[in-house]
């Protein structure tokens, strides 16, 4: 025990501060937790989505493959269509995300006539090589994402986008 006696005034000060702190926390905690819920929610594991693309019909030239799935956005469920750029590298099937790594626009294969064998983003003239590697000197800072893929009855299934593993 220290020799400093707690005065009545100090004691009341500590007690009221403590109680007030609990009351403030009791009010704020639910509201803060409410607001940050999206960052604490578990990410659902991406299911594979069936496409109408036969794997045998893919070539080494990237083709755009559209795929639709049911997207749950909070209380709103809707059918959305995304696309992937898919090509064969030997026996491997590569599916790249069309979302530009600069600011999220959509890239096109051969969209720039001066660079017919590159992906091109029209927003700020970003370019990527066929394997998704961003061309130095253009705005994107990283390679295009790569979709997980699978196969069923000869058709291509597309999973969730992950970091590019080719580079």
């Amino acid at each position, binding site marked *: 025990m220290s020799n400093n006696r707690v005065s009545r005034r100090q004691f009341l000060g500590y007690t009221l501060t403590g109680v007030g702190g609990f009351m403030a926390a009791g009010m704020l905690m639910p509201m803060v937790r409410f*607001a*940050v819920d*999206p*960052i604490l*929610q578990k*990410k659902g594991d991406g299911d594979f989505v069936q496409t109408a693309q036969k794997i045998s019909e893919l070539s080494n030239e990237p083709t755009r493959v559209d795929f639709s799935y049911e*997207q749950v*956005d*909070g*209380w*709103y469920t809707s059918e959305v269509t995304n696309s992937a750029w898919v090509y064969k590298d030997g026996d491997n099937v590569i599916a790249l995300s069309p979302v530009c790594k*600069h*600011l*999220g*626009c959509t890239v096109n294969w051969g969209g720039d006539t001066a660079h017919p064998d590159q992906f091109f983003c029209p*927003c700020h003239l970003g370019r990527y090589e066929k394997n998704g590697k961003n061309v130095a000197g253009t705005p994107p*800072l990283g390679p295009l994402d790569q979709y997980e893929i699978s196969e069923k009855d000869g058709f291509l299934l597309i999973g969730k986008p992950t970091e590019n593993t080719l580079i």
Partner: protein
Amino acid sequence: MLNKIYDWVDERLDITPIWRDIADHEVPEHVNPAHHFSAFVYCFGGLTFFITVIQILSGMFLTMYYVPDIENAWKSVYYLQNEVAFGEIVRGMHHWGASLVIVMMFLHTLRVFFTGSYKKPRELNWLVGVGIFGVMLGLGFTGYLLPWDMKALFATKVGIEIAASVPFVGELIKTLLAGDATILGAQTLTRFFAIHVFFLPAVLFVLLALHFIMIRRQGISGPL
């Protein structure tokens, strides 16, 4: 009649000193455009506040028709603009005023900079001003999404990607803003609406109060 009411209240509450404190103060010659026309540059701060008041009022009225729901947001904006009497005017005030606030605020900042008014003892008021600038940009960013048209959607996509490029916490900021890790949708719209209509205005009022209290406390900076 009005005088009598005023006197009746003043007799009981002594309100004259209150409004004298607020309204009765000297305007030095060097900031009065009637003396030197070039002093109009000192009006930009007041003009920013004037337009801010218009934004608050027109915004309050817009929420009588607007709904922050992805099915109906665009339709409600279309309706209030084209079907409601003077809807084009009220929305126009909010739309053009949003840009004008930024312009006026920028001119005000330039004036403060070039007259050196940010120097001691007014450094704190400059800092609060920078805070107001940030809040205004936030109001512009969140308000831009609300009509829920293509321009709004893609501008916000790009804006959120910019926020996501912050080192280390970028993805957290992105999710916190959008309400979902990957989707920019229903939850983003309600969040942006709440931020635009409640959170940022609350912060703005506090900062504006500080800004004005400090001006009154310190007075307008001297002539060049």
